């Protein structure tokens, strides 16, 4: 890891934080829970880390423990991602679906 790479990553980190602060301004109370739940599903992005981490076994290290940990991480992250988006979708359908006249 070169210092340049680290600085580039820190730049991403800081700019993304500023962007995140600006992104959410005024949200009606009805949407607080779905927004939280949707953002939560996005934080399951660690699935990418888990996928890359699971490559350890393939790379032939004597690191079964790491592989096992990465496997658990894949399962947990997938629950977070799939469950999170699905449950948010369900909530939004109930809130917003009726607005267009509903049944």
């Amino acid at each position, binding site marked *: 890891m070169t210092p340049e790479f680290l600085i580039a990553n820190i730049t991403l980190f800081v700019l993304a934080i500023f962007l995140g602060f600006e*992104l959410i301004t005024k949200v009606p109370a009805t949407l607080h829970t779905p927004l939280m739940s949707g953002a939560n599903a996005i934080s399951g992005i660690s699935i990418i880390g888990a996928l890359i981490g699971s490559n350890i076994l393939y790379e032939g290290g004597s690191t079964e423990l790491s592989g096992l940990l990465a496997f658990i991480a*894949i399962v947990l992250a997938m629950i977070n991602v799939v469950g999170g988006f699905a449950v948010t979708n369900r909530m939004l359908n109930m809130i917003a679906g009726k607005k267009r006249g509903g049944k």
Partner: protein
Amino acid sequence: MEDWVSVGYLISASLFIFGLKKLGHPRTAPYGNQLGALGMFVAVITTVLSMHLAGGAEWTLIVAGMIIGSSIGYWMAVKVEMTGMPELVALFNGFGGAASALVALSEVTKYINDANTLPTGLELTVTMVAAGLSALVGWMTLTGSLLAMYKLKGGVEIFGKWLRTPTWGPPWLNIVKVLLVVAVLVLIFMSIEDPTNVQYLWGIIAISCLLGIILVLPIGGADMPVVVSLLNSLSGIAAAFTGFIIGNSVLIIAGSLVGASGLILTFIMCKAMNRTLPDVLFKSFGGSEKQSLTRTKVGSDAEEVAMMVDGAQKIIIVPGYGMAVSQCQHQVKEFADLLEEKFDTEVKYAIHPVAGRMPGHMNVLLAEANVPYEQLIEMDEINSEFPECDMAVVIGANDTCNPAARSGEGPLAGMPIIDADKARTVVIIKRSLSVGYAGVDNDLFYEDKTMMLFGDGKKMMNELNTAIKDL
């Protein structure tokens, strides 16, 4: 990293940004959620493809893990009752935090098992600091979210016995929290010097788990949504730190986006309850200092209320957590339909921003019962209508319509409330006169114009509906 992989991650990050933006507006929210899901799909496909083109991977492990995780997640999301939604979000959030912490742990155990792979110099420092912080935030999110989930449920059943989740937090606990965070930071610093020391590693994990528990333990049920939102923000930060370890841009961007927007959402939610975040986190609320009841009130019965309902021009229904617990939203809808058909009454619903256990909780439940969206009115808009309203029907709500909040004293001071007490008559359906989460007695119950229907929400609504039909 190859160029096309970076482009894939860039697309994915952009989709997350648009998704979050659109999730904040009612009209575009479903679309925003789909954009987010698409972003995640792009990120996963990009990663899997890059691993394939790089010469394969441990496919059995990956495919099995992804199928198992997706199935469990999907099954839980579809199965859950609308009342259990807040708990499920807390649980998913804990899983996300744990996943980030596990990836960090997996990277570190790799070095510990095989010292040859140990990085040196700057990379070592960055890896150990990022892994330590990721562990701190990730494990804390897991234990905190699990406890928050049980607090939202109200308790846990062990061998058929219902144990109430405790709320406990003396002031000195705040000092312990600070000391524990410092201890973790010291351990992280020491692990840079001695990266293969397993004891430091376990120390960091154990303290972080403990921190999550004592962070959530003192917080009362009404503040739980705020805490879940804060933990959501933390799980994003954990993902960002994990991104630093493996040097992955999309993890850093998506993680810090969620971290920052989650924090803003936390502040918005605090504001809706007229509390500040430090108050929520460091001042124990409710639970311990409940007032004892000295007054009594004679309960009414359904027939009596039904007669009052007849002749009312305008009725406002004020739902609360009690409606969610007894699952009586369908009976409430039936009640409203009966009123409209039989007496041509105007019916509206007053939604307090923090009614229930999550913002929007009531909207979701009533929408499930097919209540038209136009009838759900937010607190600020409907409060002016109470003085001209013949009857307010409060179903399982307490603190959100407690006039004590106007007094400027006590735990509820300054919280915006629904002005149900300004209606000409007030009907309150509640199991007893007991205090709500804030632990404050409610004067509204004892007023002369108030009729109490003591009992479970569903049972009382059914009796009321029958009584109206029999009129």
